């Protein structure tokens, strides 16, 4: 059977408006993606498309061991090195560090220093052409003394960060429980797999500084790292984002390292140097999602009411700390799921192993723990003999509830709404009755050779929007809106377009605040010498946090112009500019009203607000091979306010498929600390044929802290897809896979062990 595609014109996806929502801006009035035409004609310039005459090519010589002392870097004397530039740690003019939280990662391993993971950068080469570069790279030998490698996070004695937090009386909770269930859940590495590999080009400046063009999410992160490694000031360190072919967190912190490498080579060469990773290098060396081990012990009453949650989280940070402490923080805060529970304790740690460092990836610690808690609670429901939907209904947060970290959820709480919407729109109860019937029939004897089993599963999730805890307040982001002397309206922010729609929504927000059309608003290029630091493009913070700043700046700009002209902004700004010249308004982040977080006690408003998501997946499991085909996925996401329906749906659909890939096929195999499947022929992501039909329902519960009502959206769908798929597999075959991805081998093993146990 084939399905005819519902095109936007014939059958638009419904923008469901529950009683709690308000709608502004129907899809028909939405502007088209601003940079869309350039992307569709091939005119958009990504980093590798930029031409700098006379540029050389750069390469990174990397370790081939997981743990060793670097004794020497040997250049083959038989090779002609006169046409090659070599840079080692000894040539780093500033601090040999990639600036991050703990500053433990060197830009290059120094001779006499310690190689801590496979594919770690040791020295840099540049040459005028790729052939010379390739030949030179083959003539560099690293002399090392092997050291014992720690590859199992459970055996690691080095902890990057840890928490032991919660509230209530855990033992009293368990004592009151009618049922106590324990379970252990594991997840593996996941690669962001943006289709554009990492890429940076550095140009020496006449003033001794450096200019870097590259593929990145956070120009000011790269600038800070360059300043420290090259001992430069901000004026002489310019970072400019090129068109960027996807990020998903993979271009949050790692580009800082590549920027340093390209800059070191460019300064030595005295000419531009192109540092363009190929897919193999990108897969082998750059950050992945943290693998996890999560243990749950949960107490419930007979009716399903949660009374105790004891949770232990272990994340594998890899060899350096990168962003691991904050990934762990988010994992800890999301570990209990979107559920009210009076007695909770979460102990968590992120540890070092001799594997490539793990880092930011959409969801940032939440997908791991939400897979664990959703799967565990579904098993609790099964053990109680109640439906997983009812268990969630009973416990999901409502307005006024308090989290385990003392945050009262005062507003924009939509856990129940996304849950009910998902149950209704998927016809969950009816379909689940059918799959249960089919499962019972199969169990009761041969009813013909059924080759596959259908299953349906559900997950509920939440995602804190913006930086964790006091992060936003400490960062103090600044955004600006200016009216140029020529009468142009420009938005000045460092927020980057990485596909999510930044370039489209900011002109909409500013246009709305000023009373002009989005087309009348320009967005400045993210260039550290031209825009203020509005913070990194991470943590689902761009639309909500930076969006608020530009609206506030635009409103102030409008008030100033209207006060001077006495007429509406739209009618008078051109005349104002002609008379008064340039006007710029900067807006600094102020904490959201009545929110505070105490880092010392780890209590308070962990996030200003949360987004809520429910996901229902339907799968067919082949009963001979245990291959899983994910057929249909319903994604219900509550995002405060939908700023642009097409773009918002695009985020949900893409995040949902990434989550389905995480749940089913995406896996990294390691041997001696090296990724075995470090090519695109061996690391698989879903194709259009693997992908389910994804149906999106967007709900709106506006956030009063945002002048536009918007909350974060980018990461939310990533949190719920995998547990929904695993629940659907369990519904199909009658056994729970507790480790991601749910490969045929794991499903078969699970069935084998449950058969043996019964």
């Amino acid at each position, binding site marked *: 059977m084939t399905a005819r*595609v519902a095109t936007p014109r014939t059958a638009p996806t419904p923008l469901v408006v529950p009683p709690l929502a308000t709608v502004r801006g129907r899809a028909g009035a939405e502007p088209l993606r601003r940079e869309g035409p350039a992307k569709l*004609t091939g005119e958009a310039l990504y980093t590798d498309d930029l031409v700098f005459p006379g540029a050389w090519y750069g390469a990174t010589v990397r370790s081939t061991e997981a743990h060793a002392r670097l004794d020497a870097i040997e250049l083959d004397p038989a090779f002609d090195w006169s046409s090659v530039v070599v840079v080692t740690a000894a040539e780093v003019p500033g601090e040999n560090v990639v600036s991050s939280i703990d500053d433990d990662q060197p830009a290059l391993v120094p001779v006499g220093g310690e190689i801590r993971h496979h594919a770690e950068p040791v020295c840099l080469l540049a040459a005028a052409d790729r052939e010379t570069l390739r030949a030179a790279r083959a003539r560099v030998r690293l002399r090392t003394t092997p050291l014992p490698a720690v590859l199992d996070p459970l055996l690691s004695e080095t902890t990057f960060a840890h928490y032991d937090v919660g509230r209530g009386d855990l033992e009293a909770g368990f004592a009151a429980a009618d049922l106590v269930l324990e379970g252990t859940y594991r997840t593996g590495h996941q690669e962001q797999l943006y289709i554009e590999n990492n890429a940076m080009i550095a140009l020496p400046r006449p003033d001794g500084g450096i200019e870097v063009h590259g593929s990145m999410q956070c120009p000011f992160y790269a600038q800070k790292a360059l300043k420290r490694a090259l001992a430069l000031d901000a004026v002489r360190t310019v970072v400019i984002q090129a*068109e960027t*072919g996807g990020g998903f967190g993979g271009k949050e912190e790692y580009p800082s390292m590549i920027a340093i490498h390209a800059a070191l080579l460019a300064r030595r060469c005295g000419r531009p140097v192109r540092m363009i990773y190929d897919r193999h290098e990108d897969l082998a060396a750059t950050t992945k999602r943290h693998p996890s081990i999560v243990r749950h012990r949960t107490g419930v009453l007979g009716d399903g009411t949660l009374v105790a949650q004891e949770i232990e989280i272990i994340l594998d940070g890899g060899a350096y700390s990168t962003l691991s402490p904050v990934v762990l923080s988010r994992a800890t805060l999301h570990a209990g799921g979107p559920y009210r529970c009076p007695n909770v304790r979460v102990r968590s740690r992120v540890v070092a192993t001799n594997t490539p460092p793990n880092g930011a990836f959409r969801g940032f610690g939440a997908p791991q723990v939400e897979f664990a808690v959703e799967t565990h609670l579904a098993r609790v429901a099964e053990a109680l003999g109640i439906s997983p939907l009812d268990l969630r209904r009973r416990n999901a947060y409502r307005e006024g509830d308090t989290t385990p970290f003392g945050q009262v959820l005062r507003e924009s709480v939509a856990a129940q709404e996304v849950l009910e919407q998902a149950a209704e729109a998927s016809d969950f109860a009816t379909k689940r009755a059918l799959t249960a019937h089919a499962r019972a029939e199969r169990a009761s004897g041969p009813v013909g050779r059924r080759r596959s089993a259908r299953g349906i599963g559900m997950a509920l999730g939440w995602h804190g929007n913006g930086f964790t805890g006091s992060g936003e307040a400490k960062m103090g982001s600044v955004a600006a809106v200016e009216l140029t002397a020529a009468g142009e309206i420009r938005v000045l922010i460092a927020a980057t377009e990485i596909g999510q729609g930044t370039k489209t929504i900011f002109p909409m927000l500013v246009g709305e605040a000023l009373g002009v059309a989005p087309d009348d608003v320009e967005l400045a290029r993210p260039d550290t010498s031209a825009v203020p630091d509005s913070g990194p493009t991470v943590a689902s913070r761009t639309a909500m946090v930076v969006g608020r700043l530009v609206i506030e700046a635009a409103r102030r700009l409008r008030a100033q112009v209207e006060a001077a002209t006495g007429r509406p902004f739209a009618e008078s700004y051109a005349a104002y500019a002609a008379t008064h010249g340039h006007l710029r308004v900067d807006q600094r982040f102020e904490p959201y009203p009545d929110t505070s977080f105490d880092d010392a006690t780890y209590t308070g408003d962990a996030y200003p607000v949360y987004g809520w998501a429910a996901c229902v997946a339907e799968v067919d499991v082949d009963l001979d091979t245990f291959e899983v085909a994910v057929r249909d996925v319903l994604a219900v996401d509550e995002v405060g306010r939908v700023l642009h329906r097409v773009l918002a749906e695009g985020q949900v*659909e893409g995040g949902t498929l990434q989550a389905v890939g995480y749940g089913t096929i995406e896996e990294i195999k390691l041997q001696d600390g090296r990724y075995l499947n470090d090519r695109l022929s061996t690391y698989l992501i879903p194709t259009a044929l693997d992908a389910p039909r994804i149906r999106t329902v967007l709900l709106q519960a506006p956030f009063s802290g945002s002048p536009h009502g918007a909350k974060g959206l980018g990461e939310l769908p990533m949190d719920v897809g995998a547990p929904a798929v695993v629940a659907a597999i369990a519904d199909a075959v009658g056994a729970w896979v507790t480790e991601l991805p749910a490969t045929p081998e794991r499903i078969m093993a699970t069935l084998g062990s449950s058969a043996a146990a019964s």
Partner: protein
Amino acid sequence: MNGHAGFRFLLNGESVEVAVPGMRRLLDVLREDLGLSGTKEGCGEGECGACSVLVDGMVVDACLVPICQIDGHVVLTVEGLAPRGAEPAMLSPLQAAFLEAGGAQCGICTPGMLMAARAYLDHGGGPDEDAIREAIAGNLCRCTGYTKIVEAIALAADHGADAGPFPGASAGG
């Protein structure tokens, strides 16, 4: 370039000639020798489809094709999709459908995806979901979940997009 044979082919309707080593990848010839950087490199081993171009109307990965095999053939890249010389600049109906439906996000897979879609439509493909998914199965996208790409191609099929004959009946070689 001395000492290399010249290779002639029809590129986006125009005859071109390059004198490069015969095993140089079509992708590098397009991007570096001819300055057409719309065709992207995602993996260099034929897995992602970001470098998809049409050769004689068939989708190929330009990273896997040596230029010697292109001699005398007809190549269409993303730069050849929009109507040439239109004032103001215009998108083809297929490109416009991608823009309207939201089929491009980060945009790096988009040129290759458009070429696969163009071949599908040129060969009479209609707005059938399964057939569209099959046609773009060699092109990876990490942003969209494919939903809006499939919708865009169906929309273009509905509108008889890009129905014109494949440009260049005869090759330049």
